[in-house]
Each structure stands twice: as C-alpha cells, then as structure tokens.
C-alpha cells in the first residue's frame, strides 16, 4: 500500500495494523527517514518537500509492484510525507513483511534506495544563509543502480 500525506505517521501503529491476525508473516523490516539538522556542513532549521501529485503515487505503486515481483512478500507499506518539516520529524516509512527475513530486509532497502532518486519529490532546506534546493547525490544514484537486474 502506498500513502502520500502531509501529516505524520505512527510506525508502531502501522506495523501492528499490517501484521494483526496474520500468522504467516515471519519477519517485518522497516525504514524511517528523518529530517537532519545539518546538511553539507550547514545548519538546517526546516525542510519543505514538494511532490508531483498523481505521478508520485504512480511511481511508488510501480516500485511496490516490482518489489513484490522480486521477493516473496506478504505486505508492503510506503508512507511518504510532503510539506514543511523540522529536524527530527519523520519523512518516510517503508515496511515490508515476508515469511523470511532476507526478503523483508532486501526489499525494504530496495524500496528506499529506489524511491530516493526515482519518485518525484524535491527538497528545499532552510539554512542561516537562506533557502536552498537539495542537489541529487551521486551516492544515491549508485545506491539505486545496484538494484538494476
């Protein structure tokens, strides 16, 4: 399931909902991305995430489909926020559930690696020198590319 929303999420509650009454699930992997207070050596007081409504849901849905094709997953949840957030706030939640840990752990990393550079989100940070758009990082491109089959 894919959700793109402005409000915060409760990872514990999300995982409980996902696993409730499903005794076939052997392992759940999760990743939570947070807003950091420093980037490129500069203090960050807030960050605004912009996205492309419609295409965002479509791309994340395609990534979920690809993850389910590559690993035997019982469930997938991606919650991605947009709007203004301050350091410490949660940005993104990825949860994968499978009978086995390897499928859950690998697919969780696949989803976060691929969505960072493949889903239409853009970050603008507020620093003491003013607002600046976050540049795409080569290491993120490499992280996404390692999943190319």
């Amino acid at each position, binding site marked *: 399931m894919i959700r793109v929303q402005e409000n915060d999420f409760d990872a514990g509650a999300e995982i409980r909902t996902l696993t409730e009454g499903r005794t076939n699930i052997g392992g759940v992997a999760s990743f939570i*991305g947070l807003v950091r207070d420093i980037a490129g050596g500069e203090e960050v007081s807030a960050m605004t995430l*912009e996205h*492309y409504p419609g295409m965002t849901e479509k791309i994340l849905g395609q990534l979920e489909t690809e993850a389910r094709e590559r690993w035997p997953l019982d469930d997938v949840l991606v919650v991605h926020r947009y709007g203004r957030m301050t350091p410490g706030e949660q940005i993104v939640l990825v949860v994968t559930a499978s009978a086995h840990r390897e499928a859950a752990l690998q697919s969780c990393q696949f989803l976060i690696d691929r969505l*960072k550079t*493949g*889903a239409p989100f*853009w970050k603008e940070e507020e620093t003491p020198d003013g607002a600046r758009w976050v540049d795409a990082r080569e290491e993120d491109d490499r992280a996404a590319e390692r999943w190319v089959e």
Partner: protein
Amino acid sequence: MRLLYFGWVRAKTGISGEQIELPADVGDVRGLIEHLRARGGAYEAAFQNVAAIRVAVDQEMAEMDTPVDAADEVALFPPMTGG
C-alpha cells in the same frame, strides 16, 4: 498542452504550471525545452542547463527524444530528491 514545473524549475520560472499551444515545429522533449528557453528572461534562466532538467510526459519519465506532440501533460523538474 499542460506544462507543470517543480523544484527549482518552478522557483526560477515563478509559476507552477501553464497551458500552452505547442508550436507545429516542436516534436520532442528537446524541442519543447528549446522553445521554452527561447522565451527569454526567467525561462532562459530556468532552462539554461538542459542536462540538469528531468522530464515526465503524461507522468512517465522521458528522454530528450521522447515525442511530446500528442501529450496532455509534460512536467519539467530537477533530479528528484525524495526519501
């Protein structure tokens, strides 16, 4: 055709989108970007570095030679930075 701008492309053009009549001689993404840049001013600044622009045609990621003449919606934006 509906154009959408995101990230610093939106910031530099000063608008989040617009409706345009596609000139008859514009057939692909490269031609569309050149057409926009030729408007000058804020558009020239936004589309100066073509290598930094990413494009989605009808919500599918596109290349410079992707046709746009039959598209309903084209979005232009910088490389994505989600997660």
